[in-house]
């Protein structure tokens, strides 16, 4: 592989990883703090993409769709949390897997009924529809924008979690919800906020990715499995872990496709299995296994 091709693949891998991080970050928060295994996370990604298509097709602007879509996803997240997820906080893993699996089936039907089964395209905003030269290759500006957005969100998340009182409550709630409640902090409201944040993040990822992936039934599935892989590799509950895990997965997948095409699909899972065998809690996972 020539140097320029290698560099381009590096960029491809990082870009893919950043988008995965956006999806996985919501999952790791929900999983790490709320302790809920949410298989419906991919459905939120899909819902975001469909919303992006629906609004931008009618308004002509993807950015407007995102501006409208993100709050919509927050509301959806709140609704789902109150109605379904809240009942899972004290339940076992099997119940969580199955309830959220049922939600996936439900969301798929909803998508089919509300939006139909056709494939849809989403256009990038005029201002960002140019391409950038990278040696022999060209890179669409929208991908660069998406990557930048992911990095900004990552930095913002880190700031919030480490630097604000809310972030402190999040971290406290993760290690000891009973104590936090005893201290007078409304854990229920904290959890609801976190879940809807996670939902919004997944939805936002879907909206950003929609012009790239097109919008079609079942688009959340592959993303879901990959985000679980990322979360587990990085360590459940660790945003930093999710970040590095996502980059690792993005790069492994990209280079796997080019260097070991026959093995490419299994590559990511092999990496996850290998990481877990080396570090059973993930790269940056919590030492104590509470759940």
């Amino acid at each position, binding site marked *: 592989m020539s140097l320029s091709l290698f560099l381009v693949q590096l960029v491809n891998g990082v870009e893919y990883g950043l988008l995965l991080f956006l999806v996985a970050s919501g999952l790791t928060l929900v999983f790490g703090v709320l302790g809920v295994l949410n298989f419906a996370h991919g459905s939120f990604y899909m819902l975001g993409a469909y919303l992006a298509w629906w609004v931008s097709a009618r308004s002509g602007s993807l950015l407007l769709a995102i501006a409208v879509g993100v709050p919509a996803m927050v509301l959806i997240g709140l609704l789902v949390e109150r109605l379904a997820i809240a009942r899972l906080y004290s339940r076992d893993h099997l119940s969580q897997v199955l309830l959220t699996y049922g939600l996936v089936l439900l969301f798929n039907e909803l998508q089919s009924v509300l939006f139909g089964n056709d*494939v849809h395209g989403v256009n990038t905003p005029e201002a960002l529809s140019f391409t950038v030269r990278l040696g022999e290759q060209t890179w*669409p500006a929208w991908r660069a924008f998406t990557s930048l957005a992911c990095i900004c969100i990552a930095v913002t998340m880190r700031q919030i979690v480490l630097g604000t009182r809310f972030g402190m409550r999040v971290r406290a709630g993760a290690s000891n919800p009973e104590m936090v409640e005893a201290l007078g902090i409304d854990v229920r409201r904290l959890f609801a906020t976190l879940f809807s944040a996670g939902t919004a993040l997944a939805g936002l990822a879907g909206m950003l990715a929609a012009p790239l992936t097109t919008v079609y039934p079942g688009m959340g599935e592959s993303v879901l499995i990959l985000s679980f892989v990322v979360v587990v590799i990085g360590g459940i509950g660790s945003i930093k872990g999710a970040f590095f895990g996502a980059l690792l997965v993005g790069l492994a997948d990209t280079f796997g496709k080019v260097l070991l095409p026959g093995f490419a699909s299994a590559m990511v899972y092999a990496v996850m299995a290998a990481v877990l065998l080396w570090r059973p809690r993930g790269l940056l996972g919590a030492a104590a296994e509470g759940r």
Partner: protein
Amino acid sequence: MTLSRRALLGAAACTSLLPRRLFAAGAAKLRIGLLLPYSGTYAALGHNITDAMKLAATEHGGKLGGREVEWVAVDDESDPAKAPANVNKLIAGEKVDILTGPVHSGVAMAMMQIVRQEEVLTVVTNAGAQAVTGTLCAPHVFRTSFSNWQTSYPCADVLLKAGQKKAVLMFWNYSFGQESMAAFKEGYAKGGGTIVKEIAVPFPSTEFQANLSEIASLKPDAVFVFFAGAGAAKFVKDYAAAGLKENIPLYGSGFLTEGVLGVQGAAAEGIKTTLHYADGLDNAANKKFRAAFKKATGRDADVYAVAGYDTVNVLAQALDKVKGDTGARKELIAALESARLDSPRGPFRFSKAHNPIQDVYLRQVKGGQEAVLGVALKDAEDPAAGCKMGK
């Protein structure tokens, strides 16, 4: 409580053990089974095929061979794991007279296994796997759609004529993609073309960036691909976004653009594909069909709908000849074999292996529509490798 529920189910089970003949009276309805996807990624195809079949039946007054048509549909979800059970549901449970479908070739393979054993009259309305009219061919199995070979072989000539002798292949690595590439290579090698690289993408992955970067560095004369549906939509967009469209012409079988032109937009402009149908085909049958389909469903017809439409029309011809007697198996098969249609796709008849003999057209995307540039291969007949019928 659970006991009585079980008893209820048991009782329900027993009622369907009673022979159907007890309830039939006069000319029994013609039960046509539809093994198609009505949910998931391929649902649009399932609905188009079904609606076109119903349209054709309506045009025949709802009767084929004098018998009223009764549709029995099962959602196969394009899931090969559930296929044997679904086929069983239609053949043994619902006892359909004729089985039609499916879309997915994995489901088709499961279906062929059972259908050949039970000798049920079957018309394959989409799946293009070579084996169906090849190694697995059977007198009671017909196909009205296409074989993978037919949609890709003619494209090789198109590249060769344009002087593009070095090509890169990129495809989804399952039977549809593999057979398409094999057919293309067959034609391409004959004319002296060389394949620079074959890029197999795991099915149904749609992450193409890494491979597109590879193509850019290989700098071939042209790229021939196989993708369909959402994957094709994304691929064409990615191809253009990677800046490859201007420098390296992109070709494929028609599935690259079928149904997704709207999504692909400007990225698809100028792409040449070969297929046995095009929306803009200029013949009377096509114009009539498209208008009728639009009126009946509010949607535009496509290559998938055409197969459904032709299926019922060809069955109508054959059943009329045997006066609706599906029991007269040999006569019915002979009638099907001799059927001739003025299909929306052009002249249609069956080969000895029961695959369509049809014209394959060269199309190019112009102004967001498929323009027909001409016939890429006239009377294309699938080589039917491994089929022993009629030889």
